């Protein structure tokens, strides 16, 4: 059931990335874009472009019925959702199935199960994957207090339906638990229409480590190593790298095994990521969640394995299975990616839409740029602020840092402010260089040091 014509239901750099993978597999491509993106690079390069609706995403990229109708009307037999937008909405997978279109992703039921963090935890527990000490659903503030006493403070209250840091509250002591419970519950209800909470032990200095997986839906799962995404701002990843050299080899092997076991136990189909917290002090890993999509930071895994994950994703969707076995996947060197956003670092990273008047990306050995931007491109105000990802590959982490600094120094962008200065600063920081960082390091330490220097 090989695919022949692919509908790309996304925009920006990932639309272009999917387009190129599809072209490499000789698939015809149709892209559905909003009016604001009608002249975007992916829209120009696709075999056919359909305008779904006006700029606001609710009327274009987020309208599942519209998207599936467009795919059907253009004779597509498969649909790739990219990341964000509808990529992890069971509704889209279901509509595709109803209309005989192959969804490049897991089955609708699997998306639903993995999207519910409590159910995902249960699956992980069943597969023997280590979990951070925590609870199931919490019924009340009193219940929360009893569980927290059991787990030990500090604890983290989390929304069962959550993501992106919303509905998440850290509680340091018993006298804060009641207020914390009500705040997290209200936030969760407002953000996800579901106030259900659970609790985990809070690990103050954790690294975020995740395993790249591809499963064929029949029980075959291959991992492509792990990524370390510990440089974060407001729970958003800023810099990602592979491999996680901060982790001892034996623990890395355990991490890969846990992730693969989890995906195998549910016959996972699609590219996916199992996310873990790495408690450096205790030397332990704890499962967080599975992201059932291709992720923004997938290129670092591609750089160290030499494999094309989006092509693998298309292959398993089409029923052809993986092109590689685990033994074929060999990790070489070190890769680092930084996300370049149209944001103003001097104004608390406010996103800035506009027109890119100058765009001179660096080129050279070991440098890759995933971006849809060219000179004159407009950055509409309706979508997220990422305008590109700069990725480097070198023999060692040190060499990769040096290569990325050099590449960023040569990167010329005008028309909108970008986060390039932030990346240059992080990469030059001694803590980053010596790899003594954790997920709150950027905000808690580096930004605080900047403020002190400014005073």
């Amino acid at each position, binding site marked *: 059931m090989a695919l022949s014509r692919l509908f790309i239901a996304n925009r920006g750099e990932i639309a272009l990335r999917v387009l190129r993978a599809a072209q490499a597999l000789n698939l015809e491509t149709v892209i559905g874009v909003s*009016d*604001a993106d009608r002249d975007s690079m992916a829209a120009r390069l696709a075999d056919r472009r359909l305008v779904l609706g*006006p*700029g*606001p995403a609710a009327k274009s990229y987020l309208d599942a019925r519209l998207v599936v109708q467009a795919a059907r009307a253009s004779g597509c037999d498969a649909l790739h959702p990219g990341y964000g937008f509808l990529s992890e909405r069971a509704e889209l997978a279901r509509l595709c199935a109803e209309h005989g279109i192959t969804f490049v992703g897991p089955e609708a039921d699997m998306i639903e199960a993995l999207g519910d963090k409590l159910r995902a935890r249960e699956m992980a527990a069943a597969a023997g994957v280590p979990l951070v000490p925590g609870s199931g659903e919490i019924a009340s503030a009193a219940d929360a207090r009893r569980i927290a006493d059991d787990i030990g403070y500090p604890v983290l209250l989390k929304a069962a339906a959550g993501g992106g840091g919303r509905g998440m509250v850290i509680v340091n002591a018993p006298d804060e638990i009641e207020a914390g419970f009500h705040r997290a519950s209200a936030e969760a209800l*407002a953000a996800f229409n579901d106030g259900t909470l659970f609790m985990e032990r809070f690990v103050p200095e954790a690294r975020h480590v995740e395993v790249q997986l591809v499963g064929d839906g029949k029980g075959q799962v291959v991992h492509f190593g792990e990524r370390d995404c510990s440089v974060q701002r407001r729970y958003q990843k800023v810099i990602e790298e592979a491999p996680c050299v901060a982790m001892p080899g034996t623990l890395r092997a355990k991490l890969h095994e846990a992730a693969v076991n989890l995906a195998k136990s549910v016959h996972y189909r699609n590219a996916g990521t199992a996310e873990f917290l790495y408690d450096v002090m205790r030397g332990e890993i704890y499962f967080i969640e599975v992201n059932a999509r291709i992720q923004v930071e997938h290129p670092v895994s591609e750089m160290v394995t030499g494999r094309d994950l989006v092509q693998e994703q298309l292959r398993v969707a089409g029923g052809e299975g993986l092109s590689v076995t685990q033994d074929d996947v060999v990790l070489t060197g070190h890769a680092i990616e930084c996300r370049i956003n*149209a944001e103003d670092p001097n104004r608390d990273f*406010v*996103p*800035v*839409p*506009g*027109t890119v008047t100058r765009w001179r990306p660096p080129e050279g050995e070991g440098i890759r740029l995933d971006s849809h931007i060219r000179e004159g491109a*407009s950055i*509409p*105000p*309706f*979508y*997220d*602020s990422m305008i590109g990802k700069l990725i480097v590959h070198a023999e060692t982490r040190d060499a990769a840092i040096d290569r990325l600094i050099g590449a960023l120094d040569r990167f010329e962008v005008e028309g909108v402010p970008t986060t390039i200065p932030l990346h240059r600063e992080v990469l030059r920081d001694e803590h980053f260089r010596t790899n003594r960082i954790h997920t709150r390091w950027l905000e808690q330490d580096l930004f605080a040091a900047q403020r002190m220097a400014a005073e």
Partner: protein
Amino acid sequence: MSGNDPLADLERLIEEFKHSGLRELHARCGDLEVYLSQESGASGLDAPRVSVSAPASGAVAGAAPVAPASPSDAPPAAAPERDWPENASLVRAPYLGTFYRAPKPGSPPYVEIGASVSADTEVCLVEVMKLFTAVRAGTEGRVAEVLASDGELVSAGQPLFVILPE
């Protein structure tokens, strides 16, 4: 006018302004007000105003809101600088983005016309690229007018509410 693609029109105006040799440009047409400056330290719409008439092409009018119900198809000509009462305070958009009157879809608006507000009262949300900012009244008084409609694209510094003293 070419109101089909408001963003492109706004972009074109910005491009034209860049090459015009003008230092500042402040234009308004209907609901839309644009302030452009070549000076990096310019203080936006609070700066002394240099009035420049809108280009004959009516590009500015095309940059009016994208919401379907918006009056963006109004004739571009003769949109006079509107005079606010002496004692009026304006609540302006902090940046270019989408204007929302309610905290989330289906909720009642933050404020209605006639509502009493204090400086800290949140009156609307402006969202750009997933960043939501709650905008406060900034002054005490009563909401006399709402100048933008829900879901509309507003530009930086565009007046959103008129607040009059009680």
